[in-house]
């Protein structure tokens, strides 16, 4: 029989308002094994923890039950508290009477009764707890960053700066991501390339950083401290280490009609290409879908002009395998497809463009050399209509996204301002639902667009765009003036909602990292652990966790890096001691457990056992490698003889909880 201490927390009024904490501690005092029971205002405070420790000594407690918030919140805190008082940390059980009791029930009597039952279940379980000792596992001192946009770049630079090796895996031929396509950045209007490209070069030159561009993560196994990752290096048909990036091939290639993805299809490029002048690595890539040589076997112009001899038409995808201690997801975002919003005539007129396309049309390295021209006829637009919230803040699953995309208000203000600055004779209208500009110098920026640059901000929404006779007839509401507007515009710019990159979902499955219903990665705690995934060893950087602008992304990238550095600076990690263990006397070596183990933690050994009449017999029995076992418990249920059990969640413990609840 254990000597159990029960500590009921008020959590200020969070618990105490709906649960009669005094009644709970009194009721639980009568449970078998309980030698001490009390309640206190804030059990997690220093005073609360001190009290727990002194009571452990005073009553010589062998086990502790804490009725408080979710174990996901403070289980670790209370385990440490008890450990300091000399108790094994696994002799602590938490009854969740806040998230799963006081916060969901209104009736005090009902909530109190439930709290007592939850406490009783925890007591019943802790009766059967046994001290557990955590093993350790080594840490591979190398990090993987998946995604080479500004988020991935910043994370990698910060990790490398602390002296650890980092690999960046980027699916495009160059790192840089979305920021390379952006013209100017708000609220300072400095050029995106000017602040990004030096960082890209830093990545390439940093000896701690290896860039796997044009590559994708194919499989992930292992666990925190020792992940094994398979990376597919897609065939560029150009030897990366031989190509000098001179660009001669990209001028001579006869296939000129390839839509230029970097300019979002607004112009064309060749079948062999370098996405843009500052690409890193600056290496040519052959687009296999368009290359005449690869498709028909006849051409070979690039190979002939390449003095370095870098072209290799026979190159194949290559899969490499690497080990990492930590993985950072930095897969970023994309604007949503505008196909579902054709009331704005995006598919019907080339002069209706997305905001990202507008960035390219304003950019000096873009298809128009930085002069704003209509894609349809190359004339200067005189009237431009910006539509905000296209696909953002939508209800229901059929169309659009339920969230605010966060960055559109600011970049639209930027676009409107730049238009008016460069071409003062243009009329610029912005249709908005709300203007959301929280952020340093953000609202001032938006006000400047209105007050100094004379952008017409109209509270209302565009309902229909009709292309006719070279104009875009815009029908919209002006809610403040109470009228419907009919504007003959030359261009319409749609602020499309942003969504996580499509690669994020399969990646999350590989990483066993959780995602929300919008396919953004979930953080371990929305406020207190914003850059960690609930899965140990997986960290989150940038817009893959939620919509973010550049300053926020960089801040979060640095935060993720610091978490990675904290992990990699350890030589050993403490393992989870709640692992499976077989009762060898009951094991008959049937291999059922081995087959269901997702980690390959179970092996079999032939072992000598004492038989009848002083004989010995050799039996095949299961063995669990505690450093590899993650404690899911699949084997415990698969075992037909009931030999396999899970420490900390044993059959008897869970049954005891069931009994206590059903009493």
């Amino acid at each position: 029989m254990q000597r159990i201490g029960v500590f009921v927390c008020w959590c200020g009024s969070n618990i105490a308002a709906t649960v009669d904490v005094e009644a709970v501690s009194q009721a639980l005092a009568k449970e078998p094994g309980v030698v001490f029971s009390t309640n206190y205002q804030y059990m997690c405070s220093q005073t609360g923890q001190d009290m727990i420790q002194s009571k452990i000594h005073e009553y010589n407690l062998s086990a502790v039950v804490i009725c408080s918030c979710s174990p996901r919140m403070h289980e670790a805190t209370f385990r440490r508290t008890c450990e300091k008082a000399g108790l094994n940390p696994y002799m602590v059980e938490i009854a969740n009477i806040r998230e799963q009791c006081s916060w969901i029930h209104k009736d005090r009597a009902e909530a109190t009764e439930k709290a007592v039952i939850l406490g009783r279940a925890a007591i019943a379980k802790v009766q059967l707890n046994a001290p557990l000792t955590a093993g350790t596992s080594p840490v591979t001192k190398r990090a993987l960053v998946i995604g080479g946009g500004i988020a991935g770049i910043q994370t990698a630079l910060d990790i490398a700066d602390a002296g650890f090796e980092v690999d960046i895996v980027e699916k495009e031929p160059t790192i840089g991501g979305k920021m390379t396509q952006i013209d100017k950045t708000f609220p300072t209007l400095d050029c995106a390339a000017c602040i990004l490209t030096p960082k890209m070069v830093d990545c390439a030159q940093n000896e701690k950083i290896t860039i796997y561009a044009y590559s994708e993560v194919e499989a992930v196994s292992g666990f925190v401290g020792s992940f094994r990752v398979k990376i597919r290096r897609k065939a560029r048909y150009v030897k990366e280490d031989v190509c000098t990036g001179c660009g001669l091939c990209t001028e001579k290639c006869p296939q000129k009609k390839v839509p230029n993805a970097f300019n979002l299809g607004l112009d064309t490029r060749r079948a062999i290409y370098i996405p843009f002048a500052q690409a890193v690595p600056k290496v040519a890539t052959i687009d296999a879908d368009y290359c005449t040589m690869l498709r028909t076997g006849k051409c070979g112009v690039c190979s002939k002009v390449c003095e370095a001899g870098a072209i290799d038409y026979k190159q194949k995808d290559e899969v490499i395998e690497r080990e990492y201690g930590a993985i950072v997801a930095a897969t970023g975002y994309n604007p949503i497809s505008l196909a579902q919003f054709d009331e704005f005539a995006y598919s019907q007129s080339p002069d209706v463009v997305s905001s990202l396309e507008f960035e390219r049309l304003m950019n000096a390295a873009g298809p128009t050399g930085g002069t704003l021209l209509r894609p349809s006829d190359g004339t200067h637009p005189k009237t431009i209509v910006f539509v905000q919230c296209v696909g953002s803040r939508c209800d229901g699953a059929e169309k659009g996204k339920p969230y605010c995309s966060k960055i559109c208000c600011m970049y639209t203000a930027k676009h409107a301002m730049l238009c008016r600055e460069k071409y003062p004779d243009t009329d610029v209208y912005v249709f908005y639902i709300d203007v959301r500009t929280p952020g340093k110098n953000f609202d001032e920026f938006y006000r400047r667009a209105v007050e100094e640059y004379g952008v017409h901000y109209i509270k209302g929404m565009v309902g229909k765009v009709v292309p006719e006779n070279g104009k875009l007839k815009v029908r919209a509401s002006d809610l403040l003036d109470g009228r419907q507007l009919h504007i003959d515009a030359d261009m319409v710019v749609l602020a499309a909602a942003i969504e996580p990159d499509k690669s994020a979902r399969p990646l999350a499955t590989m990483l066993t990292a959780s995602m929300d219903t919008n396919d953004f990665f979930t953080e371990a705690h929305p406020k207190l652990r914003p850059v960690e995934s609930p899965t140990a060893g997986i960290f989150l950087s940038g817009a893959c966790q939620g919509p973010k602008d550049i300053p926020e992304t960089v801040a979060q990238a640095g935060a993720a890096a610091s978490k990675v550095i904290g992990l990699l600076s350890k030589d050993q990690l403490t393992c989870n001691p709640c692992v499976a263990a077989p009762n060898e006397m009951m094991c008959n070596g049937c291999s059922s457990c081995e087959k269901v183990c997702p980690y390959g933690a179970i092996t079999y050994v032939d072992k000598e056992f004492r038989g009848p009449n002083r004989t010995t017999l050799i039996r095949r029995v299961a063995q669990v490698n505690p450093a590899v076992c993650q404690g899911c418990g699949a084997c415990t249920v698969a075992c037909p003889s009931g030999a396999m059990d899970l420490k900390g969640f044993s059959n008897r413990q869970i049954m005891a909880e069931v009994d206590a609840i059903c009493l």
Partner: protein
Amino acid sequence: MIDMMEQITRIAGVNPRKCMRCGKCSGACPAYDEMEYHPHQFVSMVENGRIDELMRSKGIYTCLSCFACVERCPRSVEPAKLIEAVRCAVERQQGMDRLRPEAVPGLLNPDLPQQAITSAFRKYRK
């Protein structure tokens, strides 16, 4: 008035509280200039219980039921359904039919499809 508001939302089967005041309905409405209360106002007036005023308005007969606002509403508020509900509330009262059978012969013209009369008759009558 609250009862009336509940009745309207029940008939319509939509929730005016979901409206985020974007005004896309009024930007999409082809009959905007023919109505004294515009689709977005309709939603907020139902929400604020100003049903009487809506019941007296001509706009309820001008709505074409073209569903442009229903289709384009990003919040599934679907103003046309609220407008229809108010129209029902009016026409279900005694003697409030907008179109009487006696009036039909006068409306006929040799090209006008039956469908137009039938529809109008259904729309404008209890």
